[in-house]
């Protein structure tokens, strides 16, 4: 009897079904489901009223119209001035965050001593932690007057002022993701170039940046996506009138600023003006979604190549 038990194969599985374990797994999956529900909620919340909106207003007129005056009589629903305003501010932001964010990343990854980096990096991250309403205040009360002092003909509100400040806010985003991807470049590549007599400058620009390019581009794309979706800085410092211009010294209204200024008031539910929030919001969501997916894919690529 005893010997037969010893010969019988060991059963390593649980001796009975543990219902508690199953319940736990279901509860955890439900937590994860909240994120899925959020995305579904966003899509439904945006597109259902947006589709209703496009029953009243032709989608072609919306996407190609050059005049945005939804609250006036006769109303006009051409979204292009808002898109142009958004792109203009975004371009100003990129002027700052792309070169200097990359510069900061190269410095931190290739030039700084380990100790210097450990101090500088968190300090730079502080910039990303400051609330955007504070940046808006800073653009309005500090940057705009300085721009006027150096002789630029800017008014109280301008795309340039909002864009420049936004660029500084996004600098750590670009720097941090770019630096991550540079850190993933294997040391041997650098050592090989040094062995051939390269300077640090050549190693940085000819070896590290090209090798880390997918992560660097991802950081740019993500920064652009953030700039397009940023609200408070433009609401405070860029102006409140739709204005189709490519002159950064003028005041413009962005898509986000429009949503915020209409959505904060008491617009009656069901009116076409109320639905514009969702039509513009859907446009904004699609634009940022495409950029986010591109960035996620690029980041995954540099992780796969070197790690």
């Amino acid at each position, binding site marked *: 009897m005893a010997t037969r038990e010893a010969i019988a194969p060991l059963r390593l599985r649980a001796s009975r079904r543990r219902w508690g374990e199953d319940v736990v797994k279901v509860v955890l999956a439900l937590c*994860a489901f909240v*994120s899925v529900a959020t995305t579904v909620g966003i899509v439904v919340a945006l597109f259902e009223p947006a589709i209703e909106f496009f029953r009243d207003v032709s989608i072609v007129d919306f996407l190609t119209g050059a005049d945005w005056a939804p609250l006036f009589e006769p109303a006009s629903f051409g979204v292009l001035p808002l898109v142009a305003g958004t792109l203009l501010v975004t371009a100003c932001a990129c002027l700052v965050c792309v070169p200097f964010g990359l510069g900061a990343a190269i410095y931190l990854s290739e030039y700084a001593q380990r100790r210097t980096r450990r101090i500088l990096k968190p300090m730079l991250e502080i910039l990303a932690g400051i609330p955007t*309403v*504070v940046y808006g205040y800073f653009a309005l009360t500090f940057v705009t007057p300085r721009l006027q002092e150096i002789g630029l003909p800017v008014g109280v509100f301008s795309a340039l002022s909002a864009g420049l400040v936004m660029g*500084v806010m996004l600098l750590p985003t670009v720097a941090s993701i770019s630096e991550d991807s540079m850190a993933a470049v294997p040391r041997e590549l650098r050592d090989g170039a040094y062995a051939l007599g390269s300077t640090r400058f050549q190693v940085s620009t000819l070896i590290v940046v090209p090798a880390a390019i997918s992560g660097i581009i991802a950081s740019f794309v993500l920064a652009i996506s953030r700039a397009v979706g940023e609200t408070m800085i433009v609401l405070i410092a860029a102006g409140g009138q739709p204005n189709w211009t490519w002159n950064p010294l003028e005041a413009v209204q962005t898509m986000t600023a429009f949503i915020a200024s209409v959505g*904060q008031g008491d617009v009656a539910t069901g009116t076409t003006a109320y639905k514009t929030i969702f039509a513009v919001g859907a446009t904004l969501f699609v634009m940022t979604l495409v950029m986010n997916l591109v*960035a996620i894919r690029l980041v995954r690529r540099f992780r796969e190549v070197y790690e």
Partner: protein
Amino acid sequence: MSVSAGRLRSDGPRGRWSGRAFYGFLLFSLVIGFSTLGALVLQVVLKGYKWVDLVLLFEPPSAEPLIAGAEPAILATIYLGVLLLLFTVPLGVGTAIYLEEYADRDRWYNRLLEVNIQNLAAVPSIVYGILGLAFLVRGIGLGRVLLAGAMILTLLVLPTVIIAAREAIRAVPDSIRQAAYALGATKWQVVWRQVLPAATPGIATGSILALSRGLGETAPLLLVGALTYVSFNPTILGEFTALPVQIYQWVARPQEEFRVLAASGIIVLLAILLTLNAFAIWLRNRYERRW
């Protein structure tokens, strides 16, 4: 990618100058960031320090700048913070445990879940505001109340908490799990008694950083109705305004006195966020374990 060896050779004085110019450019990149940070802090402190007083902290807002305070807004921001932690930590940690310990990476729906969370982390905050306006305020008829604001901020910072919690859970070495299994622990016993305690410092740090991000948000709160004039202290199911929204209201007024008031409000807001961040960093340095 290929670089010819000739281009990698150091090319004498000319190369040295371009190297120096490049180094100068790199330093300038950092200077841009730090000088802006310095100018911002100076501008705010110099303009607003005089009005950071008991009136600001303990009086309701007013059309008269001299007696206007931000007590309802400050209290609402504290309430929002407490609710935010209560909502996000269980949801975020639960999702992180599911993804790290339970989910099968090869299943398409789990991969989709990951991409979904990464994307949600980058969705513009105003879009969350629209979600709140459509579903919470108008849809289920919750109205423009503090709870709606807290729920929308929860969804907004949830991806950040999930990502931080996943990193903390991933940092717990597998040998700990294996040892617990070898002693006969069930999966949940391993997670609850071994993995979570070991990951707690990382999770706490990530959650507090996310909290400070959420409390600084303005745009989504504008859409769920935090712009109303509130002269009484908030309740969870009552109308509310939060500190960043109060600051925005003051900035948006053209009179100089309100700009000063805005600067004072910013000092209080930055002080709250800085305290939270410092606490998070202290937690990390004090309890972080390297395996």
